[in-house]
């Protein structure tokens, strides 16, 4: 379990409405700091500069989907250390298993409850080594 509370989140998501709800949920309910990234192609640079505690990735995005971005992060020495949580409306059990095997920290399915989202993330954070 990390020795500090979960505070900084990078969230990569193309849907603006969901971006707004997640931001509101994490900032207002969870009292966290959120950096939302709309374009997955620029995500690597944004994550590197924001230095989050945890990264949330949407699964289906144009240009580059969540799993591809995740694999790319795994090849970067700094980004590879970050815990990654997927948030998705469409993932088969096989996809989930594959990503968990690759080292994803957790999976949250859409629709999620904005009331509970911060607690769900903290639960995942608490289980990290």
């Amino acid at each position, binding site marked *: 379990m990390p020795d500090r509370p979960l505070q900084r989140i990078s969230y990569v998501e193309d849907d603006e409405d969901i971006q707004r709800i997640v931001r509101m949920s994490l900032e207002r309910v969870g009292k966290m700091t959120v950096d939302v990234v709309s374009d997955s192609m620029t995500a690597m640079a944004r994550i590197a500069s924001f230095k989050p505690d945890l990264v949330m990735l949407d699964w289906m995005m144009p240009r580059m989907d969540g799993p591809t971005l995740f694999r790319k992060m795994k090849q970067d020495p700094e980004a590879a250390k970050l815990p990654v949580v997927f948030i998705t*409306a469409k993932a088969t059990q096989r996809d989930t298993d594959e990503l968990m095997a690759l080292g994803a920290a957790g999976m949250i399915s859409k*629709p999620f409850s*904005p009331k509970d989202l911060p607690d769900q993330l903290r639960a995942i954070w608490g289980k990290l080594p």
Partner: protein
Amino acid sequence: MARSCQFDRSLELAGVDRLGEVGADAAGDRAFNKARIVDAGDDHDRPSEALAGQLYCGRQPVEGRHLDVEEVEIGASCRRFGNRLFAEIALLIPLFFGVSVAIAFRLNGVFLSGYRLRHAYQRQLVELQEARRQIEASGRKLALFAERSPIAVLELDAQGVVHEVNHAAELLFGYAADELAGKSVKKIVLPKYQPDFDRDWTALIASRQPMAGVKVRNPRRDGLTVVCDWTVTPLVNPDGTVISVIAQGRDITAQLEAERMKKEFTATLSHELRTPLTSIIGSLQLINAGVLGDVPKDVAELTEVAERNGQRLLDLINDILDIEKIESGKLTLMPEVIRVDELVREAMLLNKGFGDRFHVRFEAQGELLTREVTADRKRLLQVMTNLLSNAAKFSPEGEVVGITTDEVSGLLRIGVHDKGSGIPEAFRARIFGRFNQADSTATRQKGGTGLGLAICKRLIEMMQGRIGFRDRDGGGTTFWFELPRHA
């Protein structure tokens, strides 16, 4: 003087009649004693009793005419001849009679055999005619089956040359029967698949085993293609040679298209409907949770209605997706060892909010078992949630919904006991069916999709368990499910 002896027919018969009693000679003598000697020159019918008496006794006649030596010798000779003749005849008659009886008996046997043979032949002839009639009828029936069959039927020889084509095949491929007959069946195989076809055909003829479910994209005359599901059956002689091959093809193009559309629809449901619902329900939840501060009471009431119905729509989508996944065999379970008491407590905690909404309290009754089952935790919680939420929805306000755990012969049973009005008789048989609810007004008032119990039943059965319900004494219903105990 020529004389002849002759038997009166009645005497002859008398002699024969008594043959059995006194023997042939004695019979002959007695008959002779009664014989009449007839003078050829005299009246033929007048008997000479005196002469007959002398001849027999060898004495001179007492009265009447005198007899000389020649006459006496002739008499003796006649008597000997008569005796011999009589003896021979007496022997021949029974012999003849015996032979006649034997012949008659034998003939009777022959006639009887002949009669039986004729009868058997006629019967066989009738049977053969009946068999022939039946074969012809079967042949006609088979021909009719093939001809009127809605699926394409082709009869091919071992080389793959088409012999017969039914009407459905003509319609499906756009060729008249004459255009296909005598040609290779490869006419309805796409050129790029022909090497594969040759390989499969050779294997089929070599194995002589029927093949089913062979999916092939076949070209039509008009250039379009149809996907057919073929069943190919070689007809084999007793000596093992392939006489012909019957190919039956079902056009599954529309079915595949429907499956593709269903898959696409499911994906759309899964993603395109859930994504906007995430925004709708999420926004309403944030407002209703007071994250944005207090809102006017009327607004709050409406946003609660909106959130509840959004959630209902989401439940329906999730249930449809679940049923679809289960029925298409795509649902994979993640089995793990679960302690029954932990499962019950987790389910009670998860559904506490739902119970509060209906003013119903969930309560474990008796000591919960610490035994374990092997099951998918998430799916088992889904089943528990369904049973608990149903119990809460249909219990009167302020009631307690009890949860019990029992072990019966290696099976762990979890029971959820409500104090509702019970399951209507007419609804009992279809309670685990799809889109079934006892009362549609209940759906509107209390939510629910009518798919919940159908999903529960399928999930529990996938985990080698069973699910059921029974009336409770004093009102209410117990829903239960059983799972094998983890060894």
